[in-house]
């Protein structure tokens, strides 16, 4: 019904002037990865220990917990909501799992699954509050965070839980083939599962649609509330998994387990290009953000920057990444 010549006529060959712009655009699009490689090189230059296999193994372990939390935070962001309670949920649900083993005498596996189930239920509950009660997600999850942090303190009575079974801590300690840790495999599996979810399922497509324009999504036949609840539920499940891995790795649950991850878990997906306005972002970006933050943390420790400066320098590095990304969005869309 259309002569079709217009589209063809409007597409012209990119000219040389446009090419250098394209290169710059490409660089800015991949700024997280380039910055990551640059930092690895810089840290390696200051201390060659940074580039050893042993340290790489260390980085992958460190990145696992942050990565699981980052994925959990990314999901609500994609539907244009937020969940601040995720790190607190991870700590609280892990304590439930540990206490179910040590105090109720459940087998460790059952206890661990119970912990993850609790985390999932908390995610589900957050989703219900935000959709059915129309609570504002920022405030709802903020108060949930405070509740969970308080509950963890009450559960542990301020003490550190260390009575964990051997089975429970296995995954955090086990290695294979020359000392490579097993734990990061869980993260890799989660990354794969999440990319499949986002790219190949109707749920994934709906998540992007709801985040992009919830009103239009509704009239296009997407059950917006259900999608949001599902998103929060999956996110709660990931938080539970992250909590288990963290406890298993550290072989302990402190009375403020998880809380220190809050800012990094939110920063990682955003640095990786997940939009706080919803509908934009992908799994690879989250991975980039997680690795970048981990490399900064580990690197600053290794080149023995005096601890008084670590926070400031790390913050500046994150700031640079975010600023470059903002410039990219401004000029290259």
């Amino acid at each position, binding site marked *: 019904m259309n002569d079709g010549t217009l589209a063809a006529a*409007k597409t012209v060959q990119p000219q040389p002037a446009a090419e250098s712009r394209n290169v710059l655009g490409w660089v800015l699009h991949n700024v997280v990865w380039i910055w990551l490689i640059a930092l690895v090189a810089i840290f390696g230059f200051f201390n060659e220990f940074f580039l050893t296999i042993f340290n790489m193994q260390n980085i992958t372990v460190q990145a696992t917990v942050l990565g699981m939390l980052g994925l959990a935070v990314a999901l609500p962001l994609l539907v244009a909501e937020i969940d601040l309670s995720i790190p607190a949920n991870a700590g609280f649900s892990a304590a439930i799992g540990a206490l179910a083993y040590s105090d109720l005498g459940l087998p460790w596996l059952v206890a661990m699954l119970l912990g993850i189930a609790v985390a999932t239920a908390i995610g589900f509950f957050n989703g219900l509050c935000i959709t059915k009660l129309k609570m504002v997600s920022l405030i709802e999850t903020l108060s949930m965070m405070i509740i969970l942090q308080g509950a963890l303190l009450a559960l542990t009575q301020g003490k550190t839980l260390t009575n964990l079974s051997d089975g429970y801590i296995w995954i955090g300690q086990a290695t294979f083939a020359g000392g490579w840790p097993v734990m990061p495999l869980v993260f890799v599996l989660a990354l794969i599962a999440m990319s499949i979810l986002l790219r190949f399922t109707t749920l994934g497509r709906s998540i992007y649609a709801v985040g992009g324009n919830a009103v239009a999504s509704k009239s296009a036949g997407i059950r917006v509330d259900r999608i949001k609840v599902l998103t929060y539920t999956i996110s709660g499940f990931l938080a539970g998994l992250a909590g288990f891995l963290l406890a298993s790795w550290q072989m302990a649950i402190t009375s403020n387990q998880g809380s220190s991850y809050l800012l990094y878990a939110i920063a990682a997906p955003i640095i990786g290009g997940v939009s706080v306005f919803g509908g934009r972002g992908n799994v690879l970006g989250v991975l980039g953000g997680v690795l970048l933050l981990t490399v900064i943390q580990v690197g600053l420790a290794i080149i023995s920057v005096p601890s008084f400066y670590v926070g400031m320098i790390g913050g500046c590095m994150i700031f640079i990444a975010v600023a470059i990304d903002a410039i990219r969005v401004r000029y290259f869309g």
Partner: protein
Amino acid sequence: MLHQHQPMPEGDHILKVEDVSKRYGPVIALRGVSIAVKRGSIHGLLGENGAGKSTLVGIISGQFPPSGGRIVLNGTPLAHADVRAMEEAGVFLVTQESMIIDHMSAAENLMLGIWPNRRGFVNWRRLTADAARMLEGSGIDPKARAGKLDAVARRKLNILRAMFSGGKVIILDEPTAALTVADRRVLFDFMRRLKADGVTFIFISHYNDEILDVCDAVSVLRDGLLAGGSDDIGAMTSEQLSELVLGRGLALFQRERQSHEGKAPLVSFRGVVAKHVDLAALDIAPGEIVGFTGLPGAGAKEFARTIFGLNVAEAGTIAIGGAEPVPLPRAPRDAFDTGIAYLSDDRRREGSVGQMSIGDNIAMSSLPARSRAGFIDKAAESQVVDRYFQAMGIKAPTPQAAVDTLSGGNQQKVCLGRVLATEPRLLIVDEPTRGIDIGVKQDVLRIIDRLSRTGVAVIMVSTDTDELVRATDRICIFEHGAIRETLTGADISTERLRRTAQA
């Protein structure tokens, strides 16, 4: 006269567009356009979807810079002028899509950026008083939350804002698209009155009759170039305008009207009650196209939204294809699953997800049918995307382009494609050709006509009398939530509709 503007002495032109071009990456939206607008005139701007009209007025009003060329206002070339600077110079743009802040009141929106203030403090008393005066007679409650206003009121609000901000050049990008015949007349009278006071207008529309009615001069864009125009609208005819727009003659579509009396209905509605709706019974035959019309709030649109599950139904049943009557769908998903599809008239808010691709949008509503156990069947998806991308004639390099980058009319085609892809048994289209150019309008009416021949029942909600007359078998005129009058066969005519609209 045609194809050329007469040279004019400098002082006569308030605004000159000189050799302006604009490119978006590989897409060239404007390729060297020059237009001169006479002081105190209404200058029409016409052209197909994607011809570059919105781009041109966007540049004039400082929304974004041109890639080449310049804008001359009152003989002064303007470089790097942004929206703020242009508004201070008296150039205002009322965009195609309402720019309204939903959580503010109508009054606040009206005074946005022009708040009466004393040393930086907003003078709320004066703001409320001024706004109330401006909104008088417009039917808009100054205290109403803007998010709750319908498309018509939102459009009015935008126009009023520019008019009362002391604009010297006011650009209206398809301002009539959401207005009833009566509202249009009010708007045109208002424009003429301001024109007499020396205000200059640039007026974009896809309706030739509006251009001929209200404009003094006209310029036509085609594919980013100035295709022609005239400084004397009196010398132009509608056919000439169409030919300039399309570059070829226009074959107006006319459906072979059919009588469906006595046929077994495909869909039957009984006792539908909702806000603004109280309708006892309505039957639609397979292959029938029923037009719904009426004043805003009379129930035509509300009925359509209720049976699609977007508005809450208090009571009512639907029976499709001779099946038992069941309650009305409670959500759009249920409606799609029972074979009802609805195309909203509010494309910006309800039509598409702008940041997603054309393909993702086309597939969105029919995705459950093209997936297995939650996994999208990519082959089936790309098949349906390709099919409707072609059939709708969407002007974009590929279906991967984001809907945001399309012209208004092409976004509308994406929405229509999405709805048709669900292969509905009852298709409801709300202002289906709003914002679509005359050429594509005929195509869209033809598509709906062809669809009806496969046995699909169609409800066409429209305020466009011409389209109702050309494309429907029966017209229901709504009042107080019910059907006041039904026109069929030879009774269907533009004059008859005009008359009933006034009654």
